[in-house]
């Protein structure tokens, strides 16, 4: 019994320490974001490459998933709305469901699976190979050169890809609105524009930025905690990805609370 309580206590303390460490790292990164010296030619080159690998390379797959998944979901939602006689709330439900909830969530899951794991492994490998030490030897700040482009890329990519998902899903909704409600393109567009709430879009934007920030920051921090053994790499990636998914759930819950206020 005592052992169990000790274990619970130790886990709680470790989790609190991890959470505090992540927040501290986050504040350091945020402070650097607004410093001019962070943005060297080298950093900008890395940023462009990161945006290409995260947002541009995934475009075909992401577009296909957005159209297929978005269409299916929109179709199901429309059918439910019709069956429940809630046609007058169509616009609000679409904007609230697709723009504020679905787009950021699906986007962040895809990017977390693809990019967060890659970043985590990359930083851990660089730590094991002493490449981080190389950068320090040559007075290259790892935060400016390595971390900042990846984190900024996370924010930019989640925002842009989430917007793309919303556009594609809402566009596919046009087809279902015609099939299920007999709605014309003009009426559908009118319904959407009238339902577009500035507050929803701001919440969605803040949510995307927060998602993008933490799904890159957490893997970087986890990669840095790798030791100099090769076997520490998969452990670092495992811990990093678990923390990423916990962060996604936490941010989602916090955003729901914010919306309900």
């Amino acid at each position, binding site marked *: 019994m005592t052992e169990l309580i000790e274990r619970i206590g130790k886990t709680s303390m470790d989790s609190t320490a991890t959470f505090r460490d992540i927040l501290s790292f986050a504040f350091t990164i945020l402070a650097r974001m607004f410093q001019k010296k962070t943005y*060297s*030619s*080298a*950093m900008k*080159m890395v940023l462009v490459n990161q945006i290409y690998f995260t947002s541009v390379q995934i475009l075909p797959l992401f577009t296909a998933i957005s159209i297929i998944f978005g269409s299916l979901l929109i179709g199901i939602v429309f059918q439910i709305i019709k069956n429940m006689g809630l046609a007058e709330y169509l616009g609000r439900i679409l904007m609230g469901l697709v723009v504020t909830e679905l787009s950021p969530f699906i986007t962040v899951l895809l990017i977390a699976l693809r990019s967060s794991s890659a970043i985590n492994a*990359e930083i851990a*490998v*660089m730590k094991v*190979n*002493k*490449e981080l*030490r*190389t*950068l320090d*030897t*040559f*007075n*290259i700040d790892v935060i*400016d*050169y390595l971390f900042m482009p990846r984190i900024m890329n996370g924010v930019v990519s989640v925002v842009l890809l989430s917007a793309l998902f919303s556009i594609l899903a809402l566009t596919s909704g046009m087809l279902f609105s015609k099939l299920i409600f007999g709605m014309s393109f003009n009426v559908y567009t009118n319904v959407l524009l009238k339902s577009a709430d500035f507050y929803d879009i701001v919440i969605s934007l803040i949510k995307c930025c927060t998602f993008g920030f933490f799904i890159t920051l957490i893997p970087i921090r986890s990669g840095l905690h790798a030791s100099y053994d090769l076997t520490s790499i998969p452990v670092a990636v495992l811990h990093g990805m678990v923390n990423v998914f916990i962060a996604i759930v936490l941010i989602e819950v916090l955003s729901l609370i914010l919306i309900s206020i």
Partner: protein
Amino acid sequence: MLDKELSDFTANKKQTLGLISMDAPLISNLDVWVNIALIKQYHENLPKKTAKNLTLHYLQRYRMEYIADKRNSALTHKERFIVMLLRAAMVKDSIIVLDRPFTIIPDVQDDRFIYDALQLISDSFKECHIFDYMWFKDRYGIINVEKS
């Protein structure tokens, strides 16, 4: 002992240190030219194109421009040494420190390759210091250790 001497020597020279050592490897996910150009791009904010051209100019001195787009794992020992040397020389007012160079180029028997390589970029650094074990003195043509 050697590590301590090296550490003491480099302690106050961080701003101008151009270290060539197995403890400062090339960045494995960057091409050769990026590894070299990174120093100028980061510290002097040199645009990408200018930095790349500068790097290719230096690689041409060794007739090694063909390695510019290769990664670390695709390099031979000598090629890797040259890349590390050029990277070190990119530091402004560089003090090049070679830490046990024969661990980087194990297939080289004596110091001729090292000195020839340094000669080709002698205009790019201020000083050069070599740290190595005493039992390699024959490779450097050193007879009397005290005099050297």
